[in-house]
């Protein structure tokens, strides 16, 4: 695949560096950007932490309550009647985690922007749109392959792309 061992080493060490970066990011993110599940497991440590919760399904079928489920299936009950607009939709919001006091159950306070609006938004029928997005993305990837093949096509021994004109 490669012309010499030195090149092979460079390729492998680049991948190792990339892989190491991924482990570092995951380790740092546990402290800086914990998930709701992590906050619930260690409420004292993560008290006051600001969380960005994305595209969570809203369920209003539970006896008039508005219930949201996060990515890990954690149940978030909206206090009060909730907003009927949310029903059957997906919602994203930014909230502060409050949970270390012990007497009340852990809760989330939705943050507000400068104009006083909640930092939240509806994501509509998220999964359906996502499927559509993947369909379009597949088409784009196919076009990328086509354009790549047109540029390098005639000699593609796997892994080595050569200058037009032949080996």
């Amino acid at each position, binding site marked *: 695949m490669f012309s010499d061992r030195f090149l092979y080493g460079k390729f492998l060490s680049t991948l190792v560096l990339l892989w190491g970066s991924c482990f570092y990011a995951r380790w740092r993110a546990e402290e800086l950007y914990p998930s709701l599940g992590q906050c619930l497991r260690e409420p004292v440590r993560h008290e006051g932490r600001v969380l960005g919760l994305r595209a969570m399904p809203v369920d209003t079928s539970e006896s008039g309550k508005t219930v949201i489920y996060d990515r890990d299936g954690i149940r978030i009950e909206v206090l009060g009647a909730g907003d009927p607009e949310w029903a059957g939709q997906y919602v994203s919001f930014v909230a502060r985690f409050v949970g270390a006091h012990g007497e009340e159950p852990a809760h989330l306070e939705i943050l507000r922007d400068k104009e006083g*609006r909640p930092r939240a938004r509806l994501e509509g029928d998220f999964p359906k749109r996502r499927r559509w997005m993947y369909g379009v*993305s597949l088409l784009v990837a196919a076009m990328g392959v086509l354009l790549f093949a047109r540029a390098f096509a005639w000699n593609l021994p796997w892994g080595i792309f050569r200058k037009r004109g032949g080996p």
Partner: protein
Amino acid sequence: MGDFQEAGRPIADLAAHFAAAYLCGLPIPSRQARALLYWGALLPDLCFKGLLFVFQSSIWFGEPIHSLWGGVLVSYACALLFERPLRRMAFASILGGYLTHLALDVAKDNLGMGAVLLFFPSMKLYECGLYPPETSLDWAPFALGAVFLMEWFRPTLFERLKKS
């Protein structure tokens, strides 16, 4: 809670990134460089989503690949797959594509939480807040249509420009 932002548009997808890279690649005469620029624009999401869905990794595990640091490393690794005379061009083109991808993603509005881990290993997230993260799918058919048309008419267009 009624007056929150209404986004409701699907995620910045490959079509938007491809169209942006296509636009940036128009002045580049080399077909090979252009093809690699397009792939550079697709690679951040392909690598990131690949880790996420194929390897079932956490979101944060894949984030470095979606940063400048990841861009340099991925471009370098990909450039090594090419023979020597093409390597520099490959590196620059793929990295160029990566940059168009990151620029488009940084422009998103992620409710003030930041959209891209731009300067990894710094863990700060960046966003410009210009458009909701899912707007681009509405534009995808137009973007792809424009790309198809440009690809179809491109030789004629450039011949005309040369003559004029």
